[in-house]
């Protein structure tokens, strides 16, 4: 009985499949593939520009915040801050990127930067403490 099923299964749909116009199907698939990447690119462009815009704002915002925290000192800190803040940008969705942009806009506009209680003078902060301050900016 098992062999009979296998024999029948080998024939299952064979005649209908034979009637398929394979060449026409191949051309239709190619046509659809040709149209589909264009659609994907239309989605990709805004998403990518959004990421780039977010990265620029974060880098500039990070630099502004860092310069407020350490006037005249630690010239390399802004780039480091931007790196810390922008570390996982590529993992963020469009909505998350928008949220980051909004929060940074508010942050850079205001003076709500959290400073460690132990730090009486920002110039006295070491690299680790500065990182802590910058991390607090990430929310």
């Amino acid at each position, binding site marked *: 009985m098992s062999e009979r099923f296998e024999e029948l299964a080998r*024939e*299952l749909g064979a005649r209908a*499949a034979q009637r398929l116009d394979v060449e026409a199907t191949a051309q239709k698939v190619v046509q659809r593939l040709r149209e589909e990447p264009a659609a994907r690119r239309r989605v990709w462009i805004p998403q990518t520009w959004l990421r780039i815009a977010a990265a620029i704002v974060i880098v500039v915002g990070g630099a502004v915040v860092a310069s407020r925290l350490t006037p005249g000192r630690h010239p390399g800190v802004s780039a480091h801050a931007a790196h810390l803040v922008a570390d996982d940008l590529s993992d963020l969705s469009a909505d998350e990127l928008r949220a980051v942009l909004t929060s940074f806009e508010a942050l850079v506009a205001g003076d709500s930067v959290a400073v460690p209680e132990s730090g009486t003078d920002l110039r006295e902060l070491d690299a680790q403490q500065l990182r802590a301050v910058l991390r607090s900016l990430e929310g």
Partner: protein
Amino acid sequence: MAQPHPVPAPSDTALIAAWQAGDEQAAAELVRRHARPLARFLLGAGAPEADLDDLVQESFIRAFRSVDRFRGQCQFRTWLLTIGGNVVKDHGRRAGRRGRLIMPLDESVRDASGDPHEHAEAHEAEALLAAGLKQLPRLQREVFLLRAQQGLEYAEIAAALATTAGAARVHYHHAVRRLKEIVDE
């Protein structure tokens, strides 16, 4: 005089790489190679012949769109067939929502060429098998089709369905046993 050596056909892997590099004809060649076995699998899985061309196209489109996820764990055709199984399932859902019934092999069963008596018997048996396959759980049905219709080894089936060869063998035997029960009813 020495005969010129025939140029060997490019492998599926080479065609996939060519398609990824932008060669549309590589995609077309993959369709030419695998469309008919895929069509047979889709029909066995419950696709109506009236929608066969659309479902074959959809399976290829999904495969090409997600080809980056194909890691060569099994043959391209086997991977394509499992995608086809998903396409038929989604089609069944949509047809169910629209109140349409999926009747597999509707046209092929009505093929009237040749000896009418032999055809009647063959079509009856084929229709019985098709009806039995519809009653199987999806995994059993797909394992049965991959093994009995497509002639694949259990190891290959297991790689495509992310299971073990032993489990695939068990699914196959359950499918055959259930089909026997259905035929005897």
